[in-house]
């Protein structure tokens, strides 16, 4: 495996095939693999400025609210004096239990006392609760720190702003103004597509907490990641010549900026590994001519160094194209992303009661993967696993099964481990399904 010096970021960029057709607009895939450095040299970790936004609706009563409070308590215990935190609780009323404060021992003691008094009560104004949490973070925005709002819910947004599209837009606008959002969905009744959309647009992470028992583990893990950030606001920049279109297949937000396509990766923790899959579409060209793109990395503080890689393709005849070698690692990464997308689509169809469409989504993708799988065992396995899932998607699925399938696909597409946590080592990568 690639061993990289401690302070450098490793960026490896590959394409599935290097020959393209002159009289046909070829599609090719690019796999960009990023490995974050182990530390920030003498800089030390950035300050964190967090808000914990907890659902206190009636359904949270019992273990859920108790363990959520415990998780927040454990998390603030890990902060230093110059970090900040705030605690907001919401049902249809929003209460700022602890306004943004430095994490001194005194403040933490007070917070723990106030946390103890919170109990589960009413309905769910998730949108306003979340915005008030972001407001706390925004009030004391740290220019060099990690500013993030952590939203936990077990139900549907049924008061205030309820439109997922609108909430995702606000999450995106806030991310571009420095406040990122991570979401935690607990139990069977939350809207997984809403929470994923908010976290994706918000530059944070989405977690599915199946049972109250995992609440503390995942919340403290996420806080741990904020305390371990080595590069903030990482983007993959792709510079392509006119006529070459660049599209991100991995579900990260993208933007066009100064003639480049930027794929927004977010904050990276020490040794974290993220893979981004891109699809390029090439224009007509001349036999023998070459074209190429440059792929680079940039981060908020310019700590990653000028890392960039050039990739080239050549226009060649149809027979040469048909017989060319394929980079199987790229094929495998592409197949995994398509399989995950098919599963999420199938979850959506299944929820809507369209079982035929759910089946078709999964079947169609499995078929396409088999068409380029050849004898590759991994590709065959990806296709087989999809085919095995047809059984469950074509009949009504219970909430836990839907959420497990959805979250599993979400984690895979975003280079997270099966439990939702960051991927750090090659061994972790081997655990991917």
């Amino acid at each position, binding site marked *: 495996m690639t061993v990289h010096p401690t302070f450098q970021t490793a960026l490896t960029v590959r394409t599935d095939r290097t020959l393209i057709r002159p009289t046909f607009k070829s599609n090719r895939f690019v796999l960009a693999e990023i490995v974050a450095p182990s530390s920030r040299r003498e800089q030390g970790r950035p300050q964190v400025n967090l808000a914990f936004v907890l659902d206190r609706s009636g359904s949270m009563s019992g273990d859920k609210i108790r363990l959520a409070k415990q998780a927040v308590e454990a998390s603030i215990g890990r902060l230093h004096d110059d970090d900040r935190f705030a605690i907001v609780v919401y049902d249809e009323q929003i209460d700022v239990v602890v306004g943004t404060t430095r994490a001194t021992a005194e403040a933490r003691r007070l917070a723990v006392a106030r946390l103890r*008094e919170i109990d589960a009560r*009413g309905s769910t104004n998730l949108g306003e609760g979340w915005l008030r949490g972001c407001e706390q973070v925004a009030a004391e925005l740290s220019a060099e720190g990690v500013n993030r709002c952590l939203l936990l819910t077990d139900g549907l947004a049924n008061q*205030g702003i309820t439109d997922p599209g609108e909430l995702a*837009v*606000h999450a995106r606008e806030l991310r571009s103004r420095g406040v990122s959002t991570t979401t935690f969905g607990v139990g069977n009744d939350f809207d997984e597509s809403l929470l994923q959309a908010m976290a994706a647009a918000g530059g944070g992470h989405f977690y599915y907490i199946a049972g109250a028992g995992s609440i503390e583990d995942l919340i403290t893990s996420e806080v741990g990641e904020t305390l371990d950030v080595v590069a903030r606001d990482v983007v993959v920049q792709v510079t392509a010549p006119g006529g070459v279109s660049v599209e991100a297949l991995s579900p990260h937000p993208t933007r066009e900026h100064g003639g480049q396509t930027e794929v927004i990766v977010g904050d990276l923790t020490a040794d974290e590994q993220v893979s981004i899959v891109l699809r390029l579409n090439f224009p007509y060209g001349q036999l023998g001519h070459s074209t190429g793109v440059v792929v680079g990395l940039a981060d908020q503080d310019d700590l990653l160094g000028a890392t960039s890689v050039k990739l080239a393709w050549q226009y060649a005849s149809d027979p040469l194209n048909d017989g060319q070698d394929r980079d199987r690692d790229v094929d495998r990464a592409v197949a995994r992303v398509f399989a995950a997308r098919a599963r999420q689509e199938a979850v959506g169809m299944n929820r809507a009661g369209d079982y035929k469409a759910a089946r078709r989504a999964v079947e169609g993708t499995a078929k396409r993967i088999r068409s380029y799988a050849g004898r590759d065992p991994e590709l065959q396995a990806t296709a087989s696993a999809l085919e095995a899932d047809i059984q469950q998607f074509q009949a009504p699925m219970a909430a836990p099964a839907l959420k497990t399938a959805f979250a599993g696909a979400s984690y895979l597409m975003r280079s997270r481990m099966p439990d939702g946590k960051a991927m750090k080592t090659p061994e972790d990568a081997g655990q991917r399904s």
Partner: protein
Amino acid sequence: MPAENDYSLQDLADLTGVTPRTIRFYVAQGLLPSPGRVGPGATYGPGHLARLKLIRQLQREHLPLAEIRARLESLPDAAILALSEAPHGTSASSSASEYIRGVLARTRVAGRPAPHPYAAARLVAPPMPALPATAPAPASPTPSPAETPSPDRSQWDRVVLVPDVELHVRRPLTRQLNKRVERLIAIARELLEEDQS
């Protein structure tokens, strides 16, 4: 809300400052959906108005047309409405705090203009939820719904003392109490406004 298709091409132009010719160009480019009827009697709806406002805003931020089109395609109508009605402070140059204030102001006083600072804004209290029978009365620092009487006969006034500090008063008050509250507001403003750093 205005009726389905309410605006003529000229109405739309007058309301947004975009020439009729440019509006027709946007329709041809797929940035705006086609109007209700084609030709001289064509009518446009609030959706067109909202989209057009948003296009202007994004152009002011130097976004290329292709990017604007892509953004509009991915936004649901509700989001377009929200973004197009954003007060000046929510353009890309605003801070996170300003953006949030804009959104919260719109959602709380939905349909009405945001309250002028230092003016009392009348807000009707949301219906108090019935506490489940088994829940114990919490000893929390914030007032619990169970302690407040029925809201039907009263409403809460939100008095902004300084931009980040408010006083909530449930009216009607007795005359005596009302006088004291007025005094309180005057004193509070005096105190909070001194030494603005």
